[in-house]
């Protein structure tokens, strides 16, 4: 951990998660459901674009080494909330939030917080695979190089570990110098996952990571998710309810409602619970209507 970082992260957390070397397990891997500590504590979050309130009343906690899924119809604000978790909404000029997003008890929107530092700890995988127009190797080494890793052997090690971690190593180990954009869609998305885990984040945010992929590539990414949740806390936005049911431990269901102006829809959180409860006996009838396919 860098000295003088603008905010301090829970010490227990940082000392347990090594900066390098994917093979070192993080403590608390086993039985994560019970022992999990809170990573994000979101309270009464609303996100505005200018005057328009895109999503409101989001209160939920995201726990360590769990997969949390955000589901709901289009426009319900699930991606908007996800992008608050690593300050990715900063790039939208008019976006602002109300409420609070605590990351290990540190307010992510505190003026002293540097969004760059946040994103080094909270990585992201995007809807459309977006490898850099660079070689496969340089794609993965991009983040570690930013963090100052220069040694060739060290970078080689990180690249291999990360590609193995993303289940891509076997397919690309003989063509690391070729462009990442030449891979298939599913391989590109796994490359993006490798790129994200190469900086050893604590959390990986996934914004509909499979929506651009065919079923086989999707299955591989899902397998990968269940594998890497041993080491990373994952938050995934998905349109695919089966996917949420398959991969997540907890699910947040969002929906839309006509807002006060009546012209645009505001998203809101309806229910947040263990995934099996959401899909078997949800407590809100809107959730039930959605997961049983009667709505959305």
């Amino acid at each position, binding site marked *: 951990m860098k000295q003088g970082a603008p905010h301090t992260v829970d010490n227990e957390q940082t000392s347990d998660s090594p900066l390098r070397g994917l093979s070192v397990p993080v403590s608390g891997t086993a039985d994560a459901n019970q022992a999990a500590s809170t990573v994000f504590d979101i309270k009464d979050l609303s996100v505005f674009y200018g005057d328009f309130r895109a999503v409101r009343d989001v209160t939920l906690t995201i726990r360590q080494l769990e997969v949390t899924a955000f589901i709901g119809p289009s426009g319900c604000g699930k991606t908007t909330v996800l992008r608050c978790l*690593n300050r*990715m909404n900063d*790039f939208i*000029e008019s976006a602002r939030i109300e409420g609070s997003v605590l990351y290990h008890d540190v307010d992510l929107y505190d003026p002293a917080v540097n969004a*760059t*530092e*946040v*994103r*080094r*700890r909270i*990585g*992201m995988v*995007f809807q*459309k695979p*977006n*490898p*850099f*127009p*660079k070689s496969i190797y340089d794609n993965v080494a*991009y*983040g570690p190089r*930013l*963090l100052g890793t220069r040694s060739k052997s060290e970078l080689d090690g990180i690249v291999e570990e990360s590609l193995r971690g993303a289940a891509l190593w076997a397919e690309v180990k003989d063509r690391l110098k070729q*462009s990442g*954009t030449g891979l298939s869609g599913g391989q590109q998305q796994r490359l*993006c996952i490798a*790129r*994200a885990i*190469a*900086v050893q984040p604590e959390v990986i945010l996934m914004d509909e990571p499979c929506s651009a992929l065919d079923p086989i590539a999707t299955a591989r990414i899902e397998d990968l998710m269940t594998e890497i949740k041993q080491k990373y806390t994952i938050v995934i936005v998905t349109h695919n309810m089966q996917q949420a049911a398959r991969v997540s431990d907890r699910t947040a269901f969002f929906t839309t409602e006509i807002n006060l102006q009546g012209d645009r829809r505001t998203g809101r959180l309806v229910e947040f619970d263990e995934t099996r409860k959401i899909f078997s006996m949800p407590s809100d009838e809107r959730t039930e209507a959605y997961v049983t396919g009667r709505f959305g």
Partner: protein
Amino acid sequence: MTTGNVRITLADLRGNARRRRKEQRMKATFFAAAGVSVVIGGLILFVLTRGAIQFLRQIDFGQLKDSGWFPRRDRFDLTTLLVASVIMGLIAMVVAVPVGLGTAIYLSEYAKPRVRSVIKPIIEVLAGIPSVVVGYFALRFIQPEIVERLFDPRSNKSMLAGGLGIGILVIPIMASISEDALRAVPHPLREASYGVGARKSTTTAKIVLPAAVSGLVAAFVIAVSRAIGETMVATMAGGPDGSGPFSRNPLEGGLTLTAAMTNAAGGTDQAVKGASFNALFFLGLVLFLLTMVLNLIGDRFVQRVRMKY
């Protein structure tokens, strides 16, 4: 729905002959439009080459190497002109590349929409300023107020003033084409970079600029071509009228290819068939080849370094 006997003959599927002919005519029209540029280009090259050959017949090759460009004394030293063109072009690019590229990066990566909506039109207006105005500005402001104040004045015109003027003229082109190239880089690439904790400056330097390299080189090549081809500023502020000695001192005047051509075209008291008039075509051809070579080099460079996104 028709059931039973469906009879389709070839005639049914052939369609309306008149429409087909009309489609053909449209295609021919658009082809002709595209062909006009090619024909004009060919025509220019033909006229230039014809005149250049005539010129080369009229003179001894030795005359192409007598120092200085004095058409009336039959001294046609190409080096004198090339050196002046290159010096002014270099000075212009030293101004235009950093300012133009910097402007483009600012507008594309940093400026808020509102700021951008103010600066962008200003640059477009700057691009529309007639070169004669910039030439006057270079002659009456840059030369006396800047060049002569900072350096020992040797003449009332200088390649430095001309070059700076041309640079000003080229900034908007450099800025505008570069900005288009930068904005064409898909936003998800930037997000991917931010997503692993890169700062904006890092993202610009490591991701956006390399991804936009083909457009940036195009901007550079067009800007250089424009700088070398710029006539008005070079003539007004850059150098002597019609003829001049060899010089590689930017504080002295220098005659560029283009300035020499303007004067040749002006004709002065020369017979229209004379060598000094035909020199116009020869210089035109040299200029033409120069920009073509620049374009080819640019293309080759782009092929080498470009990575597709």
